[in-house]
């Protein structure tokens, strides 16, 4: 009897550590961001209830509103460009790699390698490679007779953000390629064979067989990319500082949040503002949730189709 009672409770002993750590250090902080955003804060001390004042400030008052819109725009550009690169070049490379063989497998290892590097190392590495005077990038351009295109890539308002996005793509692209490749391996070869026997050109096979079957995978990767890109922080912090120099040209929600929440050391030690920071975090949370909902519905559809 006693033993049976114990047996009925065992699962809770097994579950307890995970449940406690996960709830206290992940779920509770994520949810209390909402609560925090409705309060007035003095430094890190909570004061009175503030209603929607923090949101009003972030959304409609300068300089916050201006920064928010700027950062949001840069995040959208960041995602759009990354998405475009990975669903054109990335997908193309994945389809080619799918043929197998030792040479192609070696190439895949090369594509994926930068993904194992820390973003801090990636940032510093490219900071030096893109250095206007001594960096290898401008020297390669000069050597190729394209010296007139050489420029201070990270200091120029027009090129700073695209440069960061390309650096990020350099590290990231191996991931979508590999996931696409796994998706491609899941498509039965008979379907391709059948289409070919029916006289389809390689492009038609890709367009009418491969692409529709790969669509859920592409959707899934895009959602992950969206979440990842809307949380971009490290590269910009390391390469351009916490205020996204030059003059906020590379500022994103991640850096805007960091400055607001933990203080901006670059402009004379402004202290962190918990209320405003939480409001920004909640807005980011909602964006990510919207993407997740789309992602989950894509997954559902995949289950139905398979």
């Amino acid at each position, binding site marked *: 009897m006693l033993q049976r009672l114990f047996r*009925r409770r*065992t*699962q*809770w002993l*097994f*579950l307890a*550590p*995970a*449940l406690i*750590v996960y709830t206290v*250090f*992940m*779920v*509770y*902080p*994520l*949810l209390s*961001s909402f609560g*925090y955003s409705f309060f007035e804060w003095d430094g890190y001390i909570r004061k009175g209830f503030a209603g929607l004042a923090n949101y009003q400030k972030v959304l409609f008052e300068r300089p916050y509103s201006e920064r928010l819109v700027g950062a949001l725009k840069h995040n959208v550009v960041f995602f759009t460009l990354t998405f475009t690169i990975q669903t054109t070049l990335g997908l193309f*490379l994945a389809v080619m*790699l799918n*043929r197998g*063989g030792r040479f*192609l497998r*070696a*190439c*895949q*290892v*090369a594509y*994926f*390698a930068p*993904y*194992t*590097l820390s973003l*801090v*190392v990636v940032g*510093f*590495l490219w900071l*030096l490679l893109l250095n206007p005077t*001594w960096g*290898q990038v401008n*020297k390669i351009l000069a050597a190729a007779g394209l010296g007139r295109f050489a420029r201070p890539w990270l200091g120029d308002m027009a090129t700073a953000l695209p440069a960061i996005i390309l650096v990020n793509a350099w590290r990231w*692209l191996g991931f979508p390629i*590999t*996931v696409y490749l*796994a998706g491609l*391996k*899941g498509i*039965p*070869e008979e379907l391709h064979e059948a289409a*070919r026997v029916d006289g389809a050109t390689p492009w038609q096979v890709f367009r009418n067989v491969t692409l529709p079957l790969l669509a859920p995978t592409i959707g899934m990767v895009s959602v992950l990319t969206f979440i990842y890109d809307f*949380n971009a*922080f*490290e590269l910009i912090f*390391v390469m351009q500082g916490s205020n996204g120099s030059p003059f906020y040209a590379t500022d994103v929600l991640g850096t805007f949040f960091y400055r607001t929440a*933990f203080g901006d050391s670059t402009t004379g030690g402004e202290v962190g503002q918990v209320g405003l920071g939480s409001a920004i*975090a909640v807005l980011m949370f909602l964006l*990510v*949730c919207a993407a997740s909902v789309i992602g989950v519905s894509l*997954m559902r559809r995949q289950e139905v189709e398979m």
Partner: protein
Amino acid sequence: MTVNAATAGADSSKAFKAPKAARASRGPKPFKASKAQGLGLWALHSFIGLYALVVSYPLFLMVITAFKTTREIFFAPFALPSKWSLANFAVVWQRAEFPVYMKNSLLVTGTSVTLIACIASLAAYALARYRFRGNAALYVYFLAGLMVPIRLGVLPLFLLMRDLGLLDTHYSLVLTYVASGMPMSVFILTGFFRALPQELEFAARIDGCTEFQVFYRVMLPLVRPALATVMLINFVPLWNDFFFPLIFLRSDSLKTIPLGMTVFFGQYETDWGVVFAGMLLASVPLLVLYLLMSQQFIKGLTAGAVKG
């Protein structure tokens, strides 16, 4: 679901072997063997190889530059070092706090990954093998964390750590990492535990095992591959994490490698050889591990995405 995906992968690789064998070797399919198409294939392969070169070149530059003198870096940036000198590494290892950062990274990441594996496998086992009210809801509760990055809760987490007196300690990092590792780890392990046959459990109970012994002696060894995947998936991002050390740590003696890199970069900014040597040292553990077991890395790190 997890297991389905895993077995589906195995099936398809089997399915792939047959047509491959029929084609005798990889490469052009029989009816594609015309000269023009062979040329096209050659062009495609060179494009793929070229892109691999473009991707690898910055890594290659990082390696050779770490062995050069500053003068050589500036005046012969693309040449191989005239003498493979270890002077830069000596500076990194002796003058900077590098060994301390390395030790901290090993300690924090090692502890976190071990704890994740222990705690998540216990929880996953309970979710997979016990029937009780609230099981499905708890599973969804864990999964809900899959899509939400924990850093969006960093402000409350920061204040929580302050109230617990854990700011500027390694505990703050370990607790955060273990919590953030739960969703993916529980998800993967639950799938594997569910696939085990029930007879094993019964047999162990009849032999007089306690519930914990059933788990530890019989079931856990059977999901060892999944456990390895879980440890790998968590190890890489935690080893590379910069965000939480930046927020939680102040003391230089506690910093992990990614955060220590920024201190180090500030000190030696003009001494490129030393900076490159530092970057190489910081990346070498994972890069070597990756080159040794790239297939496991690639499979493991994309497992979450494919399955979830």
